[in-house]
Structure formats: C-alpha cells, structure tokens
C-alpha cells in the first residue's frame, strides 16, 4: 500500500470514529432507553472482568512494592515505601493497567460480538424489526463501559494497595493502621481526582472503539477476527493518548 493511501485511510478512519461518536451523543440521550440491556451489559462488563482485574492489580501492587524497596533502602527512605507505592498505584498504574486489561478483555469481546452479529445479519434483523440497533447494541455497551471502568479501577486500586501492604510486610513489620495512615496522608485530591476522571474517558474509548470496529465489520468470518483484533489495538493506543492528554490538562490546571 502506498504512503498516500495509507495516510488517507488513517484520516478516514479518524473521521469515521468521530462521526460514530457524534452519533452516540445524538442518539444516546433520546428515549427510548434500553434499561434492561444496559444493566445486562454492566453486569457482563463489570462483574465478569473483576477476577482478571483483581488478580492483575494484586500482582502489580505486590511486585511494585517488592521492587521499589531496594532503591528506597539505598537512600535510607524505606519508610516512604507505602506512600510511594500508593501514589504510583492510584495515579497511574491502577487506571492504566486496568484500562489495558479491559481493552483486551472487553474491547475484543464487544468487537467480536457485534462483528459476528453484523456478519450473520442479526443487526439488519434488529433494524427491520423496528428496534434501533445502534441504541440497543452500541449505546448500552458504551455507557456500560464508561460507568464500569471507574468502578473497576477503584477496586483495582484497593486490591493493589492491599497487596502492597502484604509486600511491605514481607520484610519488616508495618501495622495495618500505620500503613493506611501513611497511604492516606500521602494521597491528595490532585492524586485521586484527575486519575479518576480519566478512567471515564478510558472506559468510553474502549466502548466506542470496540463497538465501532464490530458494528462496521466486514463480511465473512475473517471480518470478525479483524474487528476483535483492531478493537484491542486501537483502544490500547487510545488509552495511552488519553493518558498523555490527561497529564497535560492536569498540569495546566495545576493538579500536580
């Protein structure tokens, strides 16, 4: 493929995703609302991702603590361990790792599900039976992702911090009370707030890109695979882009 056509393909993709997002905001807030499908999606997206997110967060918290200790000890700052780990988990590791895990798990499953519904004409069947498939399938999934991701991140943060407590206690003894006091003293509004706000955008990006890729998947079983795969790739990339932008905005607002 020539450079030219690849560039124009990239631009048209950006345009299409923007148009798709625009359609979400136009259609999403008009009645009728698909409540039961929304709750079903929240359950699938939130609850069923929990084990994976939990295990990852636990390991990250533990590993981060164990690995940071030698460096801090070198500077005689081992007592800062809980504070340091807490800040890195809450500010960056929790949100980004959770979002990436969800991009892999949720993004691919939405891409594959909608892709196969497109290929087997289920979306067309919905359309002719008078149910707006965009509302029923896309809007519910995007809203569910946007609402569930922050909850998953908060849980992941909690599990990560608990794992870090275990990590701290692998060598030396710090009581739970002391640990939590240190953690909460180290965390400020500007650590928690920007990190929480950006997770909404992570969730939205995962939902909208998974849906876009599946909804416009090409014919054939091959199209389903491509939809699932590119949903993961593009939404993972988007997570880092959003993270970058969020850091800049927080900086401008003085939330550092």
């Amino acid at each position, binding site marked *: 493929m020539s450079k030219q056509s690849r560039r124009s393909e990239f631009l048209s993709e950006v345009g299409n995703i923007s148009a798709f997002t625009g359609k979400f905001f136009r259609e999403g807030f008009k009645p009728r609302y698909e409540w039961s499908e929304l709750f079903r999606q929240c359950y699938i997206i939130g609850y069923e991702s929990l084990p994976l997110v939990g295990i990852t967060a636990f390991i990250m918290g533990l590993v981060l603590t164990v690995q940071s200790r030698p460096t801090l000890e070198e500077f005689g700052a081992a007592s800062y361990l809980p504070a340091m780990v807490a800040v890195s988990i809450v500010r960056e590791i929790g949100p980004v790792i959770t979002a990436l895990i969800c991009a892999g798990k949720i993004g691919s499953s939405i891409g594959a*599900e909608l892709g196969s*519904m497109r290929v087997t004409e*289920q979306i*067309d069947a*919905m*359309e*002719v039976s*008078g*149910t707006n498939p965009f509302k029923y399938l896309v809007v519910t999934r995007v809203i569910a992702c946007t609402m569930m991701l922050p909850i998953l991140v908060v849980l992941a943060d909690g599990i990560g911090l608990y794992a870090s407590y275990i990590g701290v206690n692998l060598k030396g003894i710090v009581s739970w009370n002391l640990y939590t006091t240190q953690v909460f003293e180290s965390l400020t509004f500007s650590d928690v707030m920007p990190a929480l706000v950006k997770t909404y955008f992570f969730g939205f990006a995962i939902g909208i890109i998974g849906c876009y890729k599946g909804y416009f998947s090409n014919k054939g079983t091959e199209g389903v695979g491509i939809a699932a795969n590119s949903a993961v790739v593009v939404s993972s990339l988007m997570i880092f882009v959003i993270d970058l932008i969020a850091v800049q905005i927080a900086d401008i607002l003085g939330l550092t």
Partner: protein
Amino acid sequence: MSTEENIVIRTEKLVKSFGENHVLKGFDLELNRGENLVVLGKSGSGKSVLIKCMVGLLYPDSGLVSVFGKEIPKLTQLELDELRTKIGFLFQSSALYDSMTVRENLEFPLRRHWMHKTKDEVNELVMEALKNVGLERAVDLMPSELSGGMRKRIGLARTLILKPEIMLYDEPTTGLDPITGREISNLIVAIQEKYHTSSIIITHDMECAKIVANRIMILIDGFKYTVGTYDELVKSDDPKIKPFFA
C-alpha cells in the same frame, strides 16, 4: 387488476451498484395486494439486494422503491420504523439472535408493543407462532442448539409474530429436506390465505415456486427478464428460461 391501490410494492428502474459491481441495472417490479410473487435468479444476481432495498436496509443509487405508496429513501427514521412493522423479512441466514433463547428471539419484535400486551398475551403469541412452524418444544433452546432447518423455521416464526401485511422471504426452503421444504411452502400459502399477506418469495426450489407462486418473475443481468405464471413459464422454449425449470 393492477390498479394503483392494488399495488403494495413497486420498483421502477431500480439501480444498485457496489463499486464496480453493477448488481441491479433498472429493475421493475410490482407486487399486487394478496399475491405471492416468486423471484428467480442465479446466485449472486442481486435478489437479496433487491428485497433489502424494499425495507431500507440498502438504498438504491437511482430509481424508485415504494411500499404502500411511500418512497422508502425519502422516509424519516420514524416513518420507516412505522412502515417496517407491516413488513416481515425472513433472512437468508435466519439471523437469529445468538445470545437469546428462542423465546426471547420471538419476543424481540414485540418489544415495541409490550406496553399494550400482558405477559400471558406475549406468551400466547410466541406459542402460536411456534405452533405455526411446528417447533413448540424448542422454545427454551438457544439458537446454537438448533439445526439449520430449525433455525430457518424459528426465523420464520419470528417474522410472522407481528402478522405483517407484506412478507419478504429470502430463500425460505433452502437447506431443508424436501418434506420440511414442502411444509414451509404450504405454510407460506396458508399464511397468504389466513392473513391476506402479499409476499415476495426468493427461491431456487422449483417445487416451492410451484406450490406458492401466483406469478414468477425472472431476474437476469440486473433486469426483469420475464414474468408469468408457473404454467406459462414451464412451457417456455426460451433458452434463458428453460434452465430454471430443468
């Protein structure tokens, strides 16, 4: 008999291309009220595309498609949805919703009417539709547990549940054994008589065509090649028509 109000679907000079692939090149069709019109054509000749234009799943490049006198491409989303409740569409691939049971599949088209229907009424409609296709026992199965022919029949039941005034069947008997195929064909005739539906039936199955057709239309190279009754066409010596009845 083809007076204006008797025509429920009309296409004139319908043109539809996909890039370089010119599928329909000016197709004319009239569906009269209460008739069964069979459309024959080779695989890939654009039969599915034709009926998708009639429900607004595809938009023609040019030409006219009107249903009940309303031009499909000019309707708003709301008007189109309204019109679609009167049209049943049986997909070639059945298009059952994988993530739902058979019962939920059948209930799905009723969602917009749920406000006015009690649980019992919905259940009754579901069971009646399943009875029509002889599959009451499948009500709690998932689509993945059904055979191809069963999927087709469930698809048909789902389409019939709203008792549409127009039915568009895309290959209703393909992939079924001859006995079930005949049952479906008879069912199509029974539906026509019972609910006075007007139908377009796309098929390769000549036995089905023979049972259901009031008129048969042949689609060749994007144009309407000919139209006539089964008996007229079966006697034809035209080398382009003969292969269909061989």
